[in-house]
């Protein structure tokens, strides 16, 4: 008897208009004891919803309307809530996408880790703490003895993700559900976390369901893969089989998104003499009050210099905390630097946006990483995209409406979306709106801060394609900030590697990925997962 047996699962969501739509349309699959099954699909494919039903939980607005979800022979759908409470944490445990959000900011980590034991009275607290420390050790967390006494905001993202795993494993579950546990992490961290997961799962011979959109990651950890789209199973099979002889066209599409697309030199960039659009000289910036030494309380950029030529793209890579986002904010004038200067077309820009002329502001636009926070949840798409038109170009009424439609077409969004609020768009759509807003200004330079990292590989690939096209049409230059090297490779002419607020190496596109000299760059590029089940074990542990 399989550990998990999902049969003909149907889940409905009701819209605020009271309309019911079926978001899971009769999904069936099984997970055997000690086996890890991956649910693959783009966002909206329903993979998370399915994962949650394995815990007998449906998010508010959703209801399980059909089928059975059997965990070790007991149907989670049929049993009462009290019964499910008994199982949660003990039989089946959950590792969330963003551990940062899933930890209660007001409680010490250890208390949250052992809470399962407390709730279900599994063991005396002392024992639970001891076990937690073991798990910390097993998950290769630093200072396993004491790390639990910290608060969530006092540990790094990667550590949190592993602590979340410890939190899930403390109850000794038979099934662990991973909900995109590494998506939010840097590649360098991701590899460590993956390795940690894999080892503990093997040791405990626990069953797992691994939800992800990243085939390469899944390839490292899953035994079987279920490909989902629009709430239906597209294809199912052993990992190897899916990777190498996929039958279903959608699966092929997913695989295709991984073929590193070489960045072809933008049209006309060659025959024009290189002329810097943006030039940054010795930027020093940070947060908090300036100290006596003229440096801010916490320094994020130390003497950073770089230049971007017209019609070309500069990639900035590095893990979170490397200062790459700060660089974008300084260039955009959101964070006045302590020293150093920023030039646009050779003219020096004022330190803060307030001091810059409307035209300077227009010619340089910034697109933020998290489209959800970058788009005002209370304004409609048309308002968001239309505002720069009015602000910079004084377009109003029909002219503005028309232009908004053009821009929506340009970013491949149906015009019907103009009336929606951001909350009602998918991640990819949000990011496109985000982009459309920047384009509305008709800029010369676009600062892209991690714009693809929150997106599924397929969607991300599409956005990259879009960026390239737009570049050809509008003669744009991008500063492309990302920790996702494949995308950087895909679009950039030069790549700048940052580490701890400093530039450690500048590389040209053709040197990638193997031309790296600096140790950190090496590690960085080595950490990019490959579509190959053996990759994770092949990477030398020294790297991690």
């Amino acid at each position: 008897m399989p550990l998990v047996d999902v049969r003909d699962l149907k889940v409905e969501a009701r819209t605020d208009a009271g309309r019911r739509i079926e978001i899971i349309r009769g999904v069936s699959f099984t997970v055997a004891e000690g086996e890890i099954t991956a649910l693959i699909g783009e966002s909206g494919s329903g993979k998370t919803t399915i994962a949650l039903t394995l815990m007998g939980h449906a998010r508010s607005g959703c209801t399980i309307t059909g089928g059975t979800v059997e965990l070790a022979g007991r149907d989670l759908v049929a049993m009462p809530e009290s019964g499910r409470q008994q199982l949660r944490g003990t039989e089946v445990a959950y590792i969330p996408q963003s551990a940062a959000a899933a930890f209660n900011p007001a409680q010490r980590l250890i208390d949250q880790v052992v809470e399962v034991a407390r709730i279900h009275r599994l063991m005396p607290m002392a024992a639970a703490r001891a076990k937690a420390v073991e798990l910390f050790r097993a998950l290769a967390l630093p200072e396993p003895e004491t790390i639990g006494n910290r608060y969530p905001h006092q540990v790094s993202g990667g550590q949190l993700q592993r602590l979340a795993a410890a939190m899930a494993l403390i109850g000794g579950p038979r099934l662990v559900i991973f909900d995109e546990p590494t998506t939010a992490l840097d590649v360098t961290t991701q590899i460590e976390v993956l390795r940690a997961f894999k080892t503990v799962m093997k040791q405990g011979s626990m069953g797992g369901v691994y939800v992800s959109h990243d085939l390469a990651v899944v390839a490292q950890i899953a035994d079987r893969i279920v490909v989902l789209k629009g709430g239906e199973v597209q294809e199912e099979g052993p990992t190897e089989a899916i990777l190498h002889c996929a039958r279903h066209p959608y699966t092929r599409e997913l695989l295709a998104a991984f073929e590193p697309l070489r960045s072809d030199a933008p049209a006309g960039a060659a025959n024009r003499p290189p002329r810097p659009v943006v030039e940054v000289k010795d930027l020093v910036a940070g947060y908090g009050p300036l100290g006596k030494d003229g440096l801010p309380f916490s320094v994020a950029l130390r003497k950073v210099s770089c230049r971007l030529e017209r019609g070309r793209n500069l990639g900035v890579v590095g893990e979170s905390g490397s200062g790459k986002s700060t660089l974008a904010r300084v260039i955009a004038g959101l964070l006045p630097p302590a020293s150093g200067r920023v030039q646009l077309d050779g003219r020096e820009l004022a330190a803060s946006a307030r001091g810059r002329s409307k035209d300077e502001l227009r010619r340089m636009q910034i697109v933020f990483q998290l489209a959800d926070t970058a788009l005002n949840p209370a304004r409609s798409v048309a308002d968001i995209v239309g505002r720069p038109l009015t602000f910079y170009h004084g377009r109003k009424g029909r002219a503005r409406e028309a232009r908004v439609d053009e821009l929506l077409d340009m970013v491949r969004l149906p015009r019907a979306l103009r009336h929606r609020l951001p909350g009602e768009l998918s991640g990819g759509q949000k990011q496109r709106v985000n982009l459309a807003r920047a384009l509305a200004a008709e800029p010369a330079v676009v600062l892209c801060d991690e714009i693809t990292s929150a997106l599924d590989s397929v969607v991300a690939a599409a956005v990259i394609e879009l960026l390239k096209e737009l570049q050809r049409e509008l003669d744009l230059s991008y500063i492309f900030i990302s920790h996702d090297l494949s995308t950087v490779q895909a679009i950039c002419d030069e790549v700048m590697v940052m580490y701890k607020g400093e530039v450690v190496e500048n590389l040209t596109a053709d040197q990638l990925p193997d031309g790296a000299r600096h140790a950190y760059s090496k590690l960085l590029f080595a950490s990019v997962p490959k579509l190959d089940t053996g990759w994770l074990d092949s990477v030398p542990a020294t790297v991690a």
Partner: protein
Amino acid sequence: MLSHPPLRRRSGFQVNAVGLAAGAIVLFWAIVALVGPDLAPHPPGEIVDFDFYGPVSARLWMGSDYLGRDIFSRILMGARYTVGISLAAVCIACFSGIVLGMTAAVIGGWFDTLLSRFLDALSSIPSKLFGLVVVAAVGSSIPVLVLVLAVIYTPGSYRFARALAVNSNTMDYVAVARARGEGTGYLITQEILPNIAGPVLADLGLRFVFIVLLLSGLSFLGLGVQPPYADWGSLVRENLGGLPFAAPAVIFPCLAIASLTISVNLLIDNLPVRIRDRSD
């Protein structure tokens, strides 16, 4: 995506029964406030009954007050003052409070500190003293009354709005607008306000109740409504002696106040919501 419902559905509004009922009552009182005086069977000052705290009768629908005046007529007349003044006052108070609060949050720095301290000081000056001073300084009239009420309630709504605005001020979309070079005015009205409107409205509802009640307190300082007219709170106060007899003269004004304040709050809690389908 393309399987999307037609525009009609998208721009439609969804109202629940409670909201509808509440809205109806508020509307009703608003109309009474406008046309009430014409409907009143007796002048508000006329003594029509030699008995006092008289019972409900065919002639006096809501009994008579402590002088034998017709309560029904007095409530109709009072609607104008209670609804009008309270609404005006609460709107001014919340408007100024919110604008100041958001400005303080966006500009921050010394402006914020200074304003906050000043309003703290203002809110710790007893309202009776304040009322008296105003009467003495500028005399008493309806506009003055409205302003006094507004000033008394501004600091509260300022604190509230500021707290909310500070949060939404840290969001990326505000940063984007800043990078675009937008001015403070735009940031406040277009980026922040829409996102704090909800809680602010709820707060407004509660303040409305307090103002309706404070009204009667101030009119006893000679501020505002002059006899023979009276706001509902004052009606309750002047007929309090009828309480032991459960006189309609004290019951009905209370009911009037309650019906108005409750429905205002219910209306705010159940405002019509724009329908936007999510099917992705």
